[in-house]
């Protein structure tokens, strides 16, 4: 388990991280969310040992993170960079060796990553000659070639086209299946929602919300329901629900926001007595909704 407890990091007068805490179970996937400047990158850099926290602690499997442990981690920074004149294969193998891989293992793993990320035709080409998307794939391979216990990825989807983003998503799922603990930050909420088990939303260098998606939704105070047909009878029933309010819907349906504790089966029962209901859908708040709501609340 990765335990981040009350970490703080300052750079002169700038408090990049004030107080961030969360725990990540081994083998799970964790999404770190927050607006630009919230402290995500600094937190990630502290996890992989680039920065030492000014206060608080970070432990992996109950032990403080040291140099030997870091070699079992992988890190994809937000800022992309490769040795431009080094070829793709050599670059991936170099990072493999930096993380302790030796021959023939390093070659085998390098070749596997090149194949998995469809980089075979570029394997002998200098990285500077690759497109931005392919360079990013090389960097991902560099970060994960040693099959890390913990892989920290800062904005991994940025700059990837939809096909390559799907490929990365599949690759991360594969890593997850193999037991790698993943920590990701991204502004692409739907991708995080598909991939992550737990989330933490930080802003201003502090935790604002954390937990599984269900737990985050649990803290949400309202629900939205969508009903068809949009008849006066249906509207009459919904208007009588305590705390309900109408939202702008699409043509032919009705959207209503109701308090989270409202008994939806009872509403449905009442509706079918007055109308032939063709659609009754309880819409859960998306990660995007929760994120925006949390950030606006913090502001």
């Amino acid at each position, binding site marked *: 388990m990765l335990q981040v407890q009350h970490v703080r990091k300052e750079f002169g007068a700038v408090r990049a991280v004030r107080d961030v805490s969360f725990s990540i179970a081994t083998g799970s996937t964790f999404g770190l969310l927050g607006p630009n400047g919230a402290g995500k990158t600094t937190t990630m850099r502290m996890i992989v*040992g*680039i920065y030492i926290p000014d206060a608080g602690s970070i432990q992996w499997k109950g032990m403080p993170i040291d140099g030997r442990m870091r070699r079992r981690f992988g890190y994809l920074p937000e800022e992309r960079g490769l040795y431009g004149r080094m070829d793709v294969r050599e670059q991936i193998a170099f990072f493999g060796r930096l993380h302790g891989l030796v021959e023939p293992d390093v070659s085998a793993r390098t070749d596997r990553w090149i194949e998995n990320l469809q980089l075979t035709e570029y394997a002998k080409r200098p990285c500077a000659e690759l497109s931005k998307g392919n360079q990013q794939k090389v*960097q991902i391979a560099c970060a994960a070639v040693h099959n890390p216990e913990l892989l920290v990825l800062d904005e991994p989807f940025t700059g990837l086209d939809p096909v390559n983003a799907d490929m990365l998503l599949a690759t991360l799922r594969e890593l997850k299946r193999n037991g790698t603990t993943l920590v990701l930050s991204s502004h692409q909420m739907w991708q995080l929602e598909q991939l992550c088990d737990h989330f933490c939303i930080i802003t201003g260098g502090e935790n604002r919300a954390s937990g599984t998606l269900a737990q985050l939704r649990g803290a949400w105070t309202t629900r939205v329901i969508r009903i068809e047909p949009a008849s006066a009878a249906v509207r009459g029933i919904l208007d009588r629900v305590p705390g309900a309010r109408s939202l702008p819907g699409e043509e032919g349906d009705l959207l209503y926001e109701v308090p989270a504790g409202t008994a939806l089966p009872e509403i449905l029962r009442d509706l079918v007595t007055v109308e032939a209901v063709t659609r009754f859908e309880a819409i859960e708040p998306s990660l995007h909704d929760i994120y925006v709501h949390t950030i606006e609340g913090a502001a």
Partner: protein
Amino acid sequence: MNEFITVYSAETMRRLRSRIFIVGVLLGALGIGLIIKLPAYMDTVMSQADRVVLAGDPALVSQAVPLLRKDYHIAGTMPGKTVVAPSDLADTKRISAIILLRRSGRTMTVAVYARDPGNVTVSSLRRDLLPLSLQIATGLSRTDLGKAMKLPITVRATNSKFGTAAQANDARIIAYIMLFSLYILIMINSQLIMSSVAEEKTSRIAEMLVASVNPSALLSGKIAASATLAIVQMIIWIAIGFLLGGHPGAPPTLDSAESSHATTFSLSSVSGADLAGFAAFFLLGYLQVSTMFAAVGSLVNRTEDLGALAGPLVIPIVAAFLIAMTALGAPNTPVVIIASFIPLIAPFVMFARIVVSDVPSWQIVLSLAINIAATYGIAVLAGKIYRVGMLLYGRPPKLSQIWSVIRS
């Protein structure tokens, strides 16, 4: 250790294959070739200006030929010819002058008919012909005059590690060459390290590197690779020098009486202990300077800024080289002795003192101790600056920020 080896081997291979290293080696080889071959070529060109014909008294002409051969190329003789006309010189374009030798009693007179009078050095002509002039004036035999002119002078060392002036001069030549090599290697390779670090920062690969490997291992691997390549570069240049059949040129000698000796030297003048001293101080000097340059390289955000930052770092190295040159002639003056303990300067100066004088052992040990401690200190400070500098983007850090990093 594994991290160090990985960084070291990757950095070595990367730099070996880099265009700048290949071009540097080739340009260096070209320079060495020019240094070796150019004097010979210039000699050929200049010898045309020294091509002379001797004319006049046949006895004087025959005696003057061996005396003038040292400084002139004797293209021919015209014994018995007593008058020289401009047409004599115009007929033969490859001759620069006709030297007419005449005798009147106990006096010899010399007239030079030169195509370009500016090429005639009267003093050298007078020096070459002096034995002949004295022979005519005194009536002494050639043998007696030769004995009289070879005044025996013996130089005996009284407070020196060298038995003879020749050995001392050899040692100075070798020390000069080694110091010059040290200077060139440190200057070139330290700046290459700085560029390499700056490149990693500006290409943004630095963050992945420092997350993967201990920054100290990263920095030391890079510096060790650079030192290895510096040595490889030097070996290649020396090998090319020997292949081209050259020998080191003569630096300015301090003993004018030995000036004719300066074109060749014997390695036996430098002992194994001297070479060990060179190796130790080379290593310390290289580590001190290159570590400093690497730390500064981590602070730049644009490779264009490297020149401005490298300037102040170069000053102590140039100063060290100049003091070391002084030390070759005056190894035990107070300023030189003090300089031989100061970090960054001592690697040059103490080595120069070791080669040309008997430095007390305690001074060598103290200098080594101070410089080992300084090297460690510089490495620790540079490591801290490097660790933080590599991830600082935007404005270059202020001195106060660097100071707070060093103190942390």
